[in-house]
């Protein structure tokens, strides 16, 4: 192999890397209109079984990418009053889950939603409720309250999976939306 071939190979690799990452980062607002990485507007699915079991036994196991690390640490540090519920865990389990959440929090992800969430927060802001994030309010602002809060089969924006049929897989685009008693929702 001569130097030219090696240089050509490197150049090729560089181009490929650049073009792939530009596809990954250039997804449009709805993230489903084709392209190799059309799912980049969604969040990576939950992969940690312990988190899925311990936290998912009471509520939807929200993907770590919805909140910054500081939020997860605050939530996991106050489980004895978890939005009014007692959700205490043993030290070992709690630390292990905290590490998982921190390691996959919005701060660690390059995807669009996580970056939008982060940029909408002040540095001294530590949100605890995903459903109350400015980003989340904005995404749902066109939907009448009777379809969410006033809908007995939904109740609140916290029940992601009630309408987002692929929520567990981290897919939240509008094509997967099916509002109970109403049906598909296209804005």
């Amino acid at each position, binding site marked *: 192999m001569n130097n030219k071939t090696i240089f050509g190979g490197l150049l090729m690799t560089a181009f490929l890397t650049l073009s792939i990452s530009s596809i990954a980062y250039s997804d449009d607002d709805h993230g489903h209109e084709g392209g190799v990485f059309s799912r980049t507007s969604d969040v990576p699915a939950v992969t940690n079984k312990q988190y899925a079991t311990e936290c998912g*036994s*009471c*509520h*939807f196991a929200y993907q770590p990418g919805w909140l910054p690390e500081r939020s997860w640490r605050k939530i996991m540090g106050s489980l*004895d009053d978890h*939005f*009014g*519920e*007692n*959700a*205490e*865990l*043993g030290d070992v389990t709690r630390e292990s889950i905290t590490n998982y959440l921190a390691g996959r929090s919005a701060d660690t992800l390059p995807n669009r939603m996580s970056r939008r969430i982060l940029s909408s927060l002040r540095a001294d802001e530590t949100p605890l409720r995903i459903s109350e994030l400015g980003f989340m309010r904005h995404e749902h602002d066109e939907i009448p309250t009777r379809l969410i809060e006033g809908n007995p089969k939904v*109740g609140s924006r*916290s*029940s992601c999976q009630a309408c987002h049929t692929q929520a567990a897989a981290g897919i939240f685009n509008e094509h997967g939306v099916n509002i109970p008693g109403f049906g598909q929702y296209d804005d």
Partner: protein
Amino acid sequence: MKKLLPIIVLGLAPLTAIAAGSAVPDLLAQYKSQGAADFSAERGKAMWSEKHVQKKSGEMVSCATCHGTDLSKPGSHAKTGKLIEAMSPSVNAERLTDPAKIEKWFLRNCKWTLGRECTTQEKGDFLTFIKNN
């Protein structure tokens, strides 16, 4: 291979022997060693539906708020509405098989419902009630 088969089957037996309610005898013995008296399913049943005022919310709650009074039927989380599998070991083979899981939920749910941890006597009464229903 024919000779090996019984050995394999015997080897697997302990794994399949984990029956619903299997964790209860050891826990009851442990509670007794910590000072609890005899346990009563009747007392457990009465406490199950006994209502307590939650300090923060001011709401009246009991075990039945989320689990219902018929333990062979599933319940639902008071706040999130998430389904809670039936408590009864007679319909749910996984119930009362894992001591750590039992203690975790006693801790959380006693605090939520009673505003304090349950005593060993109360925990034993609850287990006796749930196991028999």
